[in-house]
Each structure stands twice: as structure tokens, then as C-alpha cells.
């Protein structure tokens, strides 16, 4: 088996804060192959964004400790020198962010901001880079790109700004694109356009994508694989079909169950996952999810409190329930409540 294009092994990221050490990412491993899309789902504070900022080395080195391995195309990133990371960023690995208004500088034209990484990484002249930026703006569907490149971000609409962000991220033809909730700040119709655009561009450039979201509907549309994160670790992983059709972790069940559905009776209240995400300062012992889990009494010997379940390398979930238990609980107790929805999404 050839090594994966991106391979993260036993990653730990912790921040020093005034209250103590926050373990934002705690023992995370995953792989991503070239040209594929990995969807990462999870609540706020589950470590999704931190993981991806760490891949690019964008954490604040003053307060952050990183342990573990991040290997991209044979290169170890956690120990890489800042100058090596700079060559990588925007070039081999690019990133787009949630809110394109605050993620673009208000002080420079869109064209200049798109052209900058191209000049930096290819050594192109200002003029050539500008031409390329205009070309990219056209490619992401901005009408009259030559004129619009001279505009400032505040003169763009939200959807156009995100398109400009995408143009900026893809200008150096990266192998890996990290999209951190790229559609969360956009309204629904624009959301669909941006997702289509990303898919088209992925097909054209063969880019691998890490797609971070908390929207399971979006992920069903975009991803090949899904990783569900909870309290700094992965708790379930598999193909989109597997995870959405036969999820095997109580937390994933909760997530699916909490999704509002248009085809259900509108008077039924939403059913959120009970409880709140744990504090990462003092995470609960054993399984991080056990305080919110309705199924821990079915696991013998109090193991949920004493022993942290691990995620096996293949299709798996980090839960002490046996495979048989997971299967029967899902079929008998969870699936009926999801109201004939899952087949459509997967």
C-alpha cells in the first residue's frame, strides 16, 4: 500500500491559557489520498479548525504545543522550519475560511490579494501575476474579472468574496485545499453555487480537499470520506455512505437525529444531543462522550468511565459497544426515529 498523500498520526495540540492547558486536539489520526475529499464534522470546539491550522503551522508557537506526525507527500510538517512551511502555504496547501469578509484584507484590492501568493511562489512579475489573478477570477465565475479585480473586498457580495477566496487559494494549483466551513456564512442559494464551484475545480485541478463543516447535508454532497470529531479526537470514520447510512457511534446518531428535516411534521421539536461539549481543560475520564451518552449502561464494567475507546485504523467508531450492539441499536432504536431519511442523503 502506498503511503497516503496526507497522513496525520497521533496528533496532539494543546494551548497554554491562563486557566490551564487546553487539549484542543488529543490523539487524532487520519489519512487523505490525492484528489479525494475528507469531510470533518463536529461541534464548535471539537478541534476541527485547530487541526487544520496546525497542518499549515499557523498556530501561535508561543502558546501552543504540537506533538505527533503530519506527513504531507513525504514531508514531515510538525518539525518543518518556518521558511519551508511558507513555501508550502498557498502553494501546495491552500486554505479558505468561513467568513470571506473578515478573511480578506479591507485595505488592498481583490486582484492584488489574489496575485500576491502567485508572485511569491512562482516569482512571476507583478504584471503576470495580475493577469493570472484576473484569469482565476474569471474561472471562479466573477463577471468582468478585469474590472472587478481592481475592486476592494467590501465592493463584492458575500458569494463573490468567497469565490475570490477560492481563486486566491487555487492560483498556485495546490494539491491540498483546506476549506474551513466555506459556506457557513453564505445564504443557501449561494452555498449551493460555491459547493458546485468547488467540485468543478476539484475535478479540473485534481485537488484533495479537507472540508470542515457542521452541516451533514453539505458533507453528504461534497465528501468521499467523513470523520466525525468530538472533544479533540475522531470518534467515527468511514465513507460518506457508511457513516450516514449505518453510523456506529452514539454521538453520530445524535447528530443525525438533531438534523431538522423538511419532510417531517413541523410541530415536532428538534432533538439536539443532550448536554454540552466537555471542557477541554478538564476532559471527562474514559470516553469523552460518556456524560452525554444514553447507551453507556449497555457497556459492561463501567468501561465508558475508566477506559478511553480507540478508533481502529479501518472503518470504525471509538465506542465500547460491540459491533453487534451498535448494529442492533441503530437498526432497532435509532433508524426509526430518523424517519426514512438516510437513504436519500447517502
Amino acid at each position, binding site marked *: 500500500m502506498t503511503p497516503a498523500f496526507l497522513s496525520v498520526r497521533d496528533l496532539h495540540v494543546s494551548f497554554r491559557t491562563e486557566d490551564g492547558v487546553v487539549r484542543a486536539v488529543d490523539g487524532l489520526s487520519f489519512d487523505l489520498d490525492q484528489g479525494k475529499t475528507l469531510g470533518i464534522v463536529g461541534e464548535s470546539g471539537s478541534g476541527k479548525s485547530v487541526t487544520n491550522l496546525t497542518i499549515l503551522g499557523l498556530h501561535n508557537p508561543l502558546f501552543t504545543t504540537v506533538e505527533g506526525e503530519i506527513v504531507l507527500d513525504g514531508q514531515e510538517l510538525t518539525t518543518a522550519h518556518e521558511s519551508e512551511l511558507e513555501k508550502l502555504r498557498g502553494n501546495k496547501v491552500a*486554505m479558505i475560511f468561513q467568513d470571506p469578509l473578515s478573511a480578506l484584507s479591507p*485595505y488592498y484590492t481583490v486582484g492584488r490579494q489574489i496575485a500576491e501568493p502567485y508572485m511569491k511562489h512562482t516569482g512571476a512579475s507583478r504584471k503576470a501575476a495580475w493577469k493570472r489573478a484576473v484569469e482565476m477570477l474569471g474561472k471562479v465565475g466573477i463577471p468582468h474579472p478585469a474590472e472587478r479585480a481592481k475592486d476592494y473586498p467590501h465592493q463584492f457580495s458575500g458569494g463573490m468574496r468567497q469565490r475570490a477566496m477560492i481563486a486566491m487559494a487555487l492560483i498556485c494549483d495546490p494539491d491540498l485545499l483546506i476549506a474551513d466551513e466555506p459556506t457557513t456564512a453564505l445564504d443557501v442559494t449561494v452555498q449551493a453555487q460555491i459547493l458546485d464551484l468547488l467540485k468543478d475545480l476539484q475535478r479540473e485541478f485534481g485537488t484533495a480537499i479537507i472540508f470542515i463543516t457542521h452541516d451533514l447535508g453539505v458533507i453528504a454532497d461534497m465528501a468521499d470520506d467523513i470523520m466525525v470529531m468530538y472533544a479533540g479526537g475522531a470518534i467515527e470514520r468511514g465513507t460518506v455512505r457508511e457513516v450516514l447510512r449505518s453510523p456506529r457511534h452514539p454521538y453520530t446518531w445524535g447528530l443525525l437525529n438533531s438534523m431538522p428535516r423538511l419532510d417531517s411534521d413541523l410541530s415536532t421539536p428538534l432533538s439536539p444531543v443532550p448536554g454540552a461539549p466537555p471542557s477541554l481543560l478538564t476532559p471527562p475520564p474514559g470516553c469523552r462522550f460518556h456524560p452525554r451518552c444514553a447507551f453507556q449502561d449497555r457497556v459492561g464494567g463501567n468501561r465508558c468511565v475508566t477506559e478511553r475507546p480507540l478508533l481502529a485504523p479501518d472503518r470504525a467508531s471509538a465506542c465500547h459497544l460491540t459491533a453487534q450492539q451498535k448494529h442492533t441499536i441503530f437498526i432497532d432504536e435509532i433508524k426509526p426515529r430518523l424517519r426514512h431519511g438516510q437513504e436519500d442523503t447517502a
Partner: protein
Amino acid sequence: MLRFLLRRSLGAVVILFLLSIVAFLLFFGMPRDPALLMCGKTCTPANLENLHHVLGLDKSIPEQYGIFLHNLVLGSDGFAQGPCPAPCFGYSYHTNEQVWGTLMDRLPITVSLTLGGAVCFLVIGLGTGLIAAWKRGTLVDKTFTAGAMVISSMQIYFLGPLALAVLVYQTHLFEKPAYHEFTADPATWFTGLIIPWVVLSTIFASQYTRMARSSMIEQLQEEHVRTARAKGMSRRYVFFRYAWRGSLIPIVTIFGIDLGSLLGGAIITEYTFGLPGLGRLAVESVFFSDLPLLLGVMLFSATMILLCNIVVDAAYAYIDPRVRLA
């Protein structure tokens, strides 16, 4: 831009107009009679009466204000001391000299003090602030921040005499501060003002150190700064191109206010170093109930502050393309 300047200039004129009315009313609220101050030891009621008439103080306040405005805009030949071309604030009660001429005599001193000081405190303050932000959390940062804190809690009337005592009277490293005209001899102009500049700029610089540091640190946490890092721009580039640009707004705002008020007269500095600038003139005009001089200094200082404000607002539009001038 032209519309902006026109609109703001008009606004400034209105403010100055209102200010002059307030100043007029306040003056007549003062429990002192300027004629009595001028009248001297052998004051008779007749003399006093005569002085009141000469100074125009026997007219009603609105009437006096009308004459003041008329003289200011059109000038006047009606003064016993001689002709007074516009802008005419009249003749000082105390020195009998033309107010505008006195202002223009004192202005170079204040301008020299302010501009030299401003260059020093911008270079020192912003320089140390940027270094502290760049080296955030290190010993250098802590030293600069603590130093700025200590210095900014000092006052000119403490640092000034201290500098004079140590640098001038004890070690004779520098000459006694005095104003020499720049055009006559730039070298003595420079050496005469260096101590006031250093003292003035030390106090101001410490505030700019803290402001530059904190606004740079705030800017460096902006998302667009992170984006620039994420596309591979170097730390130095992002620091100076992205974060610095955003930090300029608060710095320019405060600088406009500081520059305006210094140009209106740095009272304490001028007194400490015996420099006869506009600030001293202002205090003297109050001591002698010298209405023409008081109005002259007040309106002149206010004009400086208003001008600096207009320049600052125009600078905003240059710094931030989202700001529209209208």
C-alpha cells in the same frame, strides 16, 4: 475630495464662530475690569471712564462682538495705535501691540517645538511599539512595555527640570534651551531646542509605544492577517503590509489630536524651558484680562486643531478604502 474639504472647512468656520461667541461671553463674566488693570496707581474715575471708552468696553456686548467680527473679516482703521489689516484681532490691552503680529511672532517657536518633538516621538514611539509587538512576550517586549508605563506616568514639569539640572547645569553637555531663528542659524536653532524636544517627545513617545504595540497585536489577530499568512506571505511582509495598515487608523487619530493641541501651544513645556510660544501667550492673555489677545490665541489654537482633524479624516480615506469622503 473637493466637496469634502469645502464641507469640512465650512463646518470649521461655524465652530470657530460659535467658539468666539462663547469666549466673548465668558470674558464679560470675568470679575475683573481690564481698564482697571491698565489704569495704574493714579487711577481717577475720569481716567477709567476714558479707558473704557478707548477700549470700547462702554458699548453693549453684542455691539462689541459685531465690531470684533467686522474687524476680523475686513480689518479696521479705527484703532488709535494705527491701522489693523484683516485678520484683525485688534491691539493687545496689555502690550498695545497688534494681536495678529504677536501671534505670528510667537508661532515659529511653537511650530519648531511641535514639529521637532513630533518627529522624535513618532520615530521613538512607533519604533519601540513595533519592536515590542514583533517580539511579543520576550524580554525586549516586557522592557519596552514597562519602560513606557513608567515614563508615561511622569510629567513634563518633572522630567523637564530634571533634564535641565542633569544635562545642562551639572554636566554642561547641552546648552540652555532657547529659541534661535532657524533662518538665521539652523545649528543654534537645533541645539537650542534639543532638550525641549527630547523631554516633550519622551512623554508622548511612551504613549505611542503602548498604542502601536497594542493595536499591532490586535491587528495581528485579525482573520485577514491569518489569511495572508495562510497563502505563504512571510511574517515580516504580513506585519508591515497587513497589520501595520490597520494599526494606522488609531495612531493617526491620536496623532492628529496631539499635533493640533501642541500647535495651539504647549503651555507646560514652553514655561518649563522659558520658550515664549503660543502657550505662554495664552496664559498671559488670561492673566491680564487681555480680550483681544485671548480671542486671538483661542481662535488660532482652535483653527489648528480643526485643521488637523480635517487632515486626519482625509488620511482615513487614504488608509482605508471603505471610508468615503463626503
